[in-house]
């Protein structure tokens, strides 16, 4: 009995927690398949299910543009941030570039509420004539992901990595070769995990896009928010759009599970 309880109780707890986390998702999926009136019915009704809303978001709203913007900005900003963050992390860890002061300075930029940074950034883009462009959004997202990713990667270049690199240098490698042929491949799981996080950071970012984007450069989070109009919330298309915008993250999930856990659990050297 006792052993049975030990087996069952955790499952009950986990099931409850899973339901709490999954409920909003299930709710959104249900709403996306019904219409606005049914969506707000209490107690909930299933009503007639259909894919109208999914057609709707593509026909009535520039959903494809939002999606493409999100994707381009997330991919490009991550592709730029990742090598830079890797090099930064390496120089912090192995060369102690700038000492503790620079490291903390980089982190401090993330301590500020983004709302404080967004208006000066807008001013800068206005000055150089980049407002409402995708470039401005990529740069803005870089300002978030670069400090974050470099801090995340520092630990991968510390500790035993120094020995590996020394071994490579005695073996005949230059500093660059030691970095590219040994340090980077060994830190690859971490770099990959950092890349995935960078992508998600950009994909979900709202505030900078809200202020800096224009009609043609809005991303999904801002686009979705625009469905909450003064004429009421377009809850059903909103739900459908949310479901579609979740798909890339779901697609990344298998990689995330594998590499994020491996990447974050260090000790990859032993």
């Amino acid at each position, binding site marked *: 009995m006792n052993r049975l309880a030990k087996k069952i109780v955790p499952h009950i707890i986990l099931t409850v927690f899973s339901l709490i986390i999954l409920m909003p998702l299930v709710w959104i999926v249900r709403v996306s398949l019904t219409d606005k009136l049914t969506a707000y019915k209490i107690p909930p009704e299933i009503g007639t299910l259909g894919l109208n809303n999914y057609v709707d978001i593509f026909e009535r709203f520039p959903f494809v543009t939002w999606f493409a913007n999100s994707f381009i900005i997330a991919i490009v900003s991550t592709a730029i941030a990742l090598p830079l963050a890797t090099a930064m992390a390496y120089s912090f860890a192995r060369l102690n570039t700038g000492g503790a002061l620079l490291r903390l300075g980089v982190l401090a930029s993330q301590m500020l509420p983004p709302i404080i940074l967004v208006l000066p950034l807008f001013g800068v883009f206005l000055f150089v004539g980049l407002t409402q462009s995708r470039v401005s959004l990529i740069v803005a997202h870089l300002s978030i992901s670069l400090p974050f990713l470099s801090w995340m990667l520092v630990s991968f270049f510390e500790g*035993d990595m120094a*020995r590996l690199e*020394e071994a490579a*240098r*005695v*073996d*005949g490698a230059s500093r660059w*070769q030691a970095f590219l*042929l040994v340090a980077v491949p060994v830190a690859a799981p971490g770099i990959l995990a950092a890349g995935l996080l960078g992508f998600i950071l950009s994909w979900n970012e709202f505030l900078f896009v809200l202020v800096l984007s224009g009609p043609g450069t809005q991303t999904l989070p801002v686009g979705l928010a625009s469905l909450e109009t003064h004429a009421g919330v377009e809850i059903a298309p909103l739900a459908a759009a949310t479901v579609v915008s979740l798909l890339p993250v779901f697609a990344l999930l298998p990689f995330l599970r594998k590499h994020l856990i491996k990447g974050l659990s260090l000790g990859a050297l032993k």
Partner: protein
Amino acid sequence: MASITLDKITKVYPNDVTAVNGVSLDIRDGEFMILLGPSGCGKSTTLRMIAGLEAISSGDMLIGGRRVNDVDPADRDIAIVFQNYALYPHMTVAKNLAFGLKLRHVPASEIETRINRVAALLGIEPLLGRKPSQLSGGQRQRVALGRALVREPQAFLLDEPLSNLDATLRSSMRTELIKLHHTLGTTIVHVTHDQVEAMTMGERICIMKDGDIVQVGEPMEVYRNPANTFVASFLATPPMNLLPGRIESVGAGALVVAMDGVALPVPTAFQAAYASHSGKPVIVGLRPEDFHLAAGDAARTAPIDLVTITTEVLGPEVILVANLASGAGPEIHARMPRDFRAKIGQPLTLHFDLAEIQLFDPETTRVLPRPAHP
């Protein structure tokens, strides 16, 4: 192959800590040299300066007669084996071995030949396709060694390579390294804090302490004639017994070393050497194996009365731990035959072989020079 010369090498870290203090050492071409010392003595820093992984603050470093102070590690043509092996975890064993050769643009066919030869030499052929994470500690050790061997460098630098292995494996790797050195004849500099490794492997031992070289010499030379109390107490287990005493004149040039209730006559051959210290305090060094149960020739041994503290039965021998009968001074360790037994508190008399006595100056801790063998 090459000789390695350190000429007044100093390493001062940015925080003003002096790790190595003007060290000079000639490592001969093809020699197996041991750098021995407790942790923090500067031996690893010295090795890293030879490798080029640590900048030299002052002094000259020569490998094969060429000054290498400003030469990149890659261009020094030396190989290093680290304590934690530092195998490239993302490469197979074969690729680990090939890495240095590829960087040096050795032709692929030559690389393959060399890898096969080294793999055969170390018995790691079946491991060539594996990743380091799939190897045991001993296998990683072999691969790390192989990675150094395959390069056929001017010299091998070994940074405590055996300290992560279990006792059995360590002892067999010791033998294997000695054999390898015999086969290859390449210069080896081996850093260790293990005095057994130092005694058994080295052609010469360089003992370091606090960034200085204390003594350099062949193992038995250092063992028999330690330069100071540090070397005396660092080599061998149990180490040399060091007891406070005093040299006293007993007339007609004859001297005795007096300790609490014990008087050891100084052999005639040493009298001239010790005469100037007559009447002064000394530290008396007695090796545990120079205590005997039976008295020898009266001129050659002297009785010492002891009280047993305990005995450590090791199997091949018994270590007697005792105090002088007067109860004063530090514990004395004596190496006894395997069937020796003594009860706690039991008084007994052992006979010390006077020709093996070493005396040290208590102020400088340096040995008082005397003829090596009477």
